[in-house]
């Protein structure tokens, strides 16, 4: 499902920083993978590359059989639209839109009819157990609830790939665990491929596979039986 071969990413500044150095890895469809590593190890960069938010300096990335190199920005957006759902650490909800509107936003961007989009958004909010908060604004929700809205938004088109950047990083342990179990639950139910960047050891270990990055390189790739 996700395939990286020899991906390198450099950031040009006053001094060139090599965030990723020749990373190659393969994530199969339906896998739930956690990506760990110390600050600056390149996990977020890797996630952004896979999420088509950024382009690698060299190397190739293939998503669901589609090679990303050579695509224009709009083509990349098209890929992102169809295949990827994002969950951010800071939720990145639009504060002026209600939960329903936030969730329906990607659908609107895809040109869905309002009724159809709302129906789907409701469905998704029910899925994340927020059917009672549909008309609320993000400001009126707790952190966990917001993240659930964000997850619902990420799932709006049932993308085959779900990318999460520290989804529990901004939440307390209890809420974090709740969100995590929600993600796992959705993963099982919807069969999406999940790649999750995390600092949290327990979060990482809850995934069947953990990739450890250090200084822009994959240093370890652990496969384990998922704990239940």
């Amino acid at each position: 499902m996700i395939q990286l071969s020899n991906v390198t990413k450099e950031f040009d500044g006053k001094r060139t920083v090599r965030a990723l150095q020749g990373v190659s890895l393969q994530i199969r469809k339906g896998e739930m993978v956690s990506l760990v590593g110390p600050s600056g190890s390149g996990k977020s960069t890797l996630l952004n590359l896979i999420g088509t938010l950024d382009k690698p300096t060299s190397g190739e990335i293939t998503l669901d059989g589609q090679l990303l190199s050579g695509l224009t920005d709009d083509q990349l957006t098209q890929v992102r639209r169809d295949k990827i759902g994002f969950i951010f650490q800071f939720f990145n909800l639009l504060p002026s839109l209600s939960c329903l509107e936030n969730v329906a936003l990607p659908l609107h961007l895809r040109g869905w009819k309002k009724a159809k989009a709302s129906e789907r958004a409701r469905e998704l909010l029910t899925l994340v157990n927020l059917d009672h908060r549909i008309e609320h604004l993000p400001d009126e929700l707790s952190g966990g609830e917001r993240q659930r809205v964000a997850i619902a938004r990420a799932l709006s088109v049932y993308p085959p790939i779900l990318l999460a950047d520290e989804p529990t990083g901004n939440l307390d342990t209890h809420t974090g665990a709740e969100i995590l179990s929600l993600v796992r639950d959705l993963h099982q139910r919807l069969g999406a491929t999940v790649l999750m960047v995390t600092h949290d050891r327990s979060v990482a270990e809850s995934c069947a596979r953990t990739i450890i990055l250090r200084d822009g390189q994959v240093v370890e790739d652990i496969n384990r039986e998922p704990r239940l």
Partner: protein
Amino acid sequence: MMLLRLISWPYVRKHLLRALLTTAGIVLGVAVFVGMHTANQSVLYAFNRTVDRIAGATQLQVTAGEIGFSEDVLERVQAQPDVEVAVPVIEATVQTGIAGQGNLLVLGVDMTGDRSLRDYDLEKADDTIVDDPLVFIAQPDSIIVSRQFTERTGLKLNSKLTMQTMQGPRQFTIRGVMNSEGLASAFGGSLAVMDIYAAQLVFGRGRRFDRIDISLHPGIKVDDARRRLQSALGSGFEVDTPSSRGQQFEAVAQVYSMNATLTSIFALFIGLFLIYNTFSIAVTQRRNEIGILRALGASSGLVKRLFLAESAITGLIGSTIGIGVGILIARGLATYLGTFFAEVYGVGEKAQEVSADPKLLLSALFIGVGTSVVAGWLPARNAARVDPVKALQKGRVQVITEGESRLRRNLALLLLAGAVACATLGHVRIFFYSGYMLNVLAVLLLTPALCIWLGKALRPLLKWLRPVEGALAADSLLQSPRRTSGTVAALSLSVALVVGLGGIAKASYESIRSWMDAALSPDFFITGSETITQRSIRFPEELAGEFRKVPGVEEVQAVRTARILYSGTPVMLVAADLRSLAERVRLQVIEGDGATMYKRAERGEGVVLSDNFALLRKVKTGDVLELPAPDGMVKMPVLGVVLDYSDQNGTILMDRGAYKKYWGDPTVNAFRIYLNAGEDRAAMRQKLLDQFGGRTRLFIMTNAELKQYITNLTDQWFGLTYVQIFVAVLVAILGIVNTLTVSIADRKRELGVLQAVGGLRNQIRQTIWMEAIAIGVLGLAIGFALGAVHLYYILEVTRRDLAGMRLDYRYPFAIAATLIPVILGSALFSAIGPAETAVRGSLVEALEYE
């Protein structure tokens, strides 16, 4: 100071363009203020300097309006014990017939004695020739010109120079050249001196003088002498210092001044909103930074002061640039205003250098900085209220504006109520102006609320246009009324300004056009000079009879126009054959009995006033005017008021008989000639020129030419208005650019999220574009409404205090309609840049943007 450098400067540097755009309003406001007033002052200064140069050592001048007085007044003046030297003067403006040299101001003076008053600074080298006043006086064709003039024209001593005189073109001999200082430097050297008795002859003055220049015995106070002379001569004469001529000019320029002040107030208002807007957003964006500062021990007062200092500096920079721009504007304007010289002297003088008054600049600086600080006040207060704990928590937005908007709305409603109350008391000046102010303020305070209402109304439309982008754009507007309302307010102010200016221009044009159709009925207008405002060359009355004898001429009306002083203000006295005029001209009657008032005026029972005279001087039918005539005050009852726009300061219409009787002046400025029906105008004009052109200087304007001339004058008058409209539109556009730049920066993350969740670049672009257009629409809608109110007030101001013109309220739909594509187009245009920045920037960065 350290904080400013460490904290503020990096932020400004990062947003340099935005910072510059923010100052735009201040720049323009200050620029218009400084430009207009500097131009005014410079022209006034140049004017006064010219007056000084011409006046020489003259301490007092005796005049009787433009009418002049008989020679024996001179001896009466000379007999006064205070008077040391009194010399007669005639001023006339002539054309030289030399291409590109324009007019020459000819000063007729008594060469036997005048030299003690004026230093002609004749060239030493030619002393014996030039300095031979005997030859000079013996030969009436003698003139002295300035060195500059000889240099420009290549003429030399004893060269011949042809000038247009009342006796037709005549040759003069240059018998003296003045060095280019003092007197000779007035009007850039376009000045000539000749013997006064010769001048009487060639300029048709008979045995009259225009003026007497006086110097007093040493030690006598000018003011005391003025009073004594005035009482000795009687009220038919004006005894005043030469500089009072400048004061008359000031009165004319005042109209411009007031106009410019109004515009600069608007521009500053607009600037206020731009700054408020930018600072509000800056406070939101720098929340984190403020939090850190607070965490490090900065008090909330310090934070507030920091932001206030920033706004003060913004104001300072804006004002400084504005002053620079203003001085540049002043240069252009000074030339423009210089045309007023022609009104007074017949010779235009440019302000040679534009010199700005330090006091003016200081007050401009103060106004600019003040405006900026006022604008920064609320944002600074909000910055001070930032909670350090919350601010340092990433991803949380502190909402601090809820109460403020309600307060604002209530205040707005209160102001509106006040405005309505003032409107009912509108006849009292102070209430009238306060009402105006309150109205504008109320609308501005209501802008956020209006933005929300209108935004909601607009949403379906935008959505219908582009379901996704439209809705997003509308939501963006609705979500942050604070961000939007600043621009919308600025924009609507600009639009209102344009509507007001456009409305008054439209109304004026319409009024003037209908007046011209009523008043200007003759086929020909015969004048002694190309410009009808030039009254220094006059015809003998007898010419009327001769014109009448020409076959094809049906009727001739002799008209004498002269400026006289009515309680200190120069107004226009029009002496005409009222019987004939009443038959031919149908001026709209405002007061009095149209059927009888001309007849009564014809019998010398009184005068008819123009509407603007009545309004500006606050007189009505039945009042008695006291007019200065040579033998004392002439009391003339007002018989009626008619609509007439001949003169900006008002006209007094009087029968020629009465004028001749009281003023003893039989000369004529202009003849109005009616031809028999079916006469060929071109042929008639040629015939008249052939018959009379040889012996007297005359210009024949056809009806159409005169109307065109007046239209051109009107255009010129409104030229400044169009400049102001242009400035207003420019500010509006800058305002939109500013807000969008700021708004996009503010929403960088939001736009990133949109893209992250699948927004295509075109969708983002279109969202921004539509938002821009929506802002434009809101600004236009509110502006059109505010403009309607503004126009009402500015028409009232014009009627009451400026021109006394009774103008109809006509909403300038054409201009309003033109504004729609202009504003929307520039909104769209100014959105292109920010939109591109938004879609081209790094998404990763945008998402992390804080």
